[in-house]
């Protein structure tokens, strides 16, 4: 009887350890996504991209539809908030491009070509696009590859944070508002064709 006990303990321990190991599962469609406990996750960015890009397309399509498909150079998104976008960026870019392309009047130019042209003309900041010389240099390089854009799109993320200390029965709380604004400008004139934004607030408990 004692021998059974002796064997049972390590087996039970092994079972517990095994149960604590890494696991993975495929989430069902429509199942709730995780909300990050320290910084924004997929849910936040998916929502922001969906909201703002859809608005952008709605605002810009009326004009665009009348004049045929426009070639869009998507410059990217810059961070003006407290959280870096780094590993979220490829997915965000894909989603924005997908919405733009599927909206009808836009075709999106290769992002690699856009990045290369930006580097070639030293176009680091999006605000550079409002200077004719910079736009001309950029469209010139893109045009050399027969891909001169008609419109340029870029985005900016910002965060606003409010913190409150917890009491005896509550934890410290941090509320953070995330926003993504997208701008579309005419590649030839630099005129802003459309500017929209989406917002989401997340509450973090420390």
């Amino acid at each position, binding site marked *: 009887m004692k021998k059974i006990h002796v064997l049972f303990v390590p087996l039970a321990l092994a079972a517990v350890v095994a149960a604590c190991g890494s696991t993975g599962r495929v989430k069902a469609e429509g199942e709730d996504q995780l909300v990050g406990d*320290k910084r924004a996750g997929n849910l936040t960015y998916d929502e922001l991209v969906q909201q703002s890009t859809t608005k952008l397309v709605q605002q810009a399509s009326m004009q665009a539809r009348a004049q045929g498909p426009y070639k869009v150079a998507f410059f*990217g*998104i*810059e*961070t*003006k*908030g*407290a*959280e*870096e*976008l*780094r590993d979220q960026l490829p997915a965000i870019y894909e989603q924005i491009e997908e919405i733009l392309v599927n909206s009808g009047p836009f075709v999106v130019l290769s992002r690699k070509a856009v990045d290369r042209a*930006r*580097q*070639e003309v*030293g*176009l*680091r*900041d999006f*605000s550079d696009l409002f200077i004719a010389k910079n736009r001309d240099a950029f469209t010139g390089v893109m045009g050399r590859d027969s891909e001169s854009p008609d419109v340029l799109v870029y985005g900016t993320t910002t965060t606003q944070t409010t913190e409150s200390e917890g009491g005896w029965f509550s934890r410290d709380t941090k509320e953070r508002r995330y926003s993504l604004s997208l701008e579309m400008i005419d590649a030839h004139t630099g005129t802003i064709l459309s500017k929209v934004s989406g917002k989401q607030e997340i509450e973090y408990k420390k």
Partner: protein
Amino acid sequence: MAMKLLPRRRCVAAAALSVVAAACQAPDQRIAPFADAWGAADFGRAEEEIDELIAEEAGVEPALVTESHSLDEAIDPARGDTFLFLLEKSMTRLASNDTDAAIDLMRRGRDVLATRYVDSDVKGWLLSAVKDDTTLEYRGADYEHVLTPALLALVDLLEGGQDAYAYALQVGEVQETILGSTFGEDVDGEGNGYNPRKQYQRLAIGAYVEGLVREREGYSSEAFKAYERAREWGGAVPVVVEACERTTNGVYAAPQHGVVHVIRLAGRGPRLVQGRSPMTDAALFLANIGSLLIGENIGTLGQMQIPVPVVSSPDMNAPELEIRADGQVVGATSTLLDVGAVAAQQIEANMPWILARAAIRRTVKAVGAKAVQDAADRSNNDQGVGLLLGVLTNLALTAGEKADTRNWTSLPARFQVARLEMPEGAHDLDLGSGMHASVRVAAGKDSYVVVVQPDLSKAGVVLVDVYSSQPAPAAPETPAAPEAPRP
């Protein structure tokens, strides 16, 4: 009787000595091969050494570490000290101009540091005092918590700076969290204690980078606020004083001029080595308050010198760098942050708690040794055996004590920065020691040059941001070599 006991005593002594001898390598000895190679600017060897440590710590195949540049998902940064080694690895990647991997590795390190940050749980920290400090999870020195996002910001500038502002803000967030910590402040609920973090000084580097990014974007008033914070925290560093002046009364740059920021990671940063310290009154006071929480009484007698971490900073006085173009001096760096001094200040501020923990630990061990002695006395008529066993047990338990000398060794001794206004066009900057930077300066634009030079007597690595680096000249077409005649 005495003759009979001798062999037994020898056995006990041998056992005790073997315990002492078995005390494994101190952390600073473990990292030494990497740190030495890094300090000699032998980046290839440093990377090999750190890869071995990562594989060992993360429990993965060395080939996986090397092939994936330590980025494979199977390498768990939270396992043991893996994240610390990943931070070291990030510097070797930076030295290889692999900024992408450097950023990913630093982010992994930063995320583990964030989860291990201890704000106010003094009791938990004291309860773990029975263990040697080196057996605890490494939580990162507070300056390492701050410098990780600071370095991320600098490296990100080389990639275009898309996230640089976010990282600069994180420096401020982390810094304020640390300085706002209540750790150790009120240990017994009656206001007794000591908060080491209240002794810290704020670091100017995050605010400077924040100002730099804002100024680049044309927001002079916001840039000024950030620079002013940098001045308040870092003192009258010439480059910061000039920045404050420029953003209030000046202009970004003269017409048709751009700005080159040279950021030099100069010299070998602080390394922790083991030293010894006597027990201090402040530490005993804290130990006695702490003992109320953990239910032990701290003995004040017989406290021998305690192994403690001591900061070694061989390049603490790294000289500034003079920068030349076309044979003319165009500027010199200013030290924005002296990492060695900050590390030393923080270690000193934390010393009372380090010693207090050691005092508590020794008390617990003494209680254990007394138990061994009592047990031996009960089973042996000779009182000497019990005493000897007690002394040897205590000796074995305390002789193996090691100071926690873990730290991020590849940090520089100093962060030095220079801001040069230069006419637009291509420039070759002479950075001394045979180092050059080919920079394409655009009017009204920033360019970034990062110099990684751990060995001040040798050339380091010079990195230029992707928007300012000169396009590589097209390789001349060489005629295909004639095929060798077959034998």
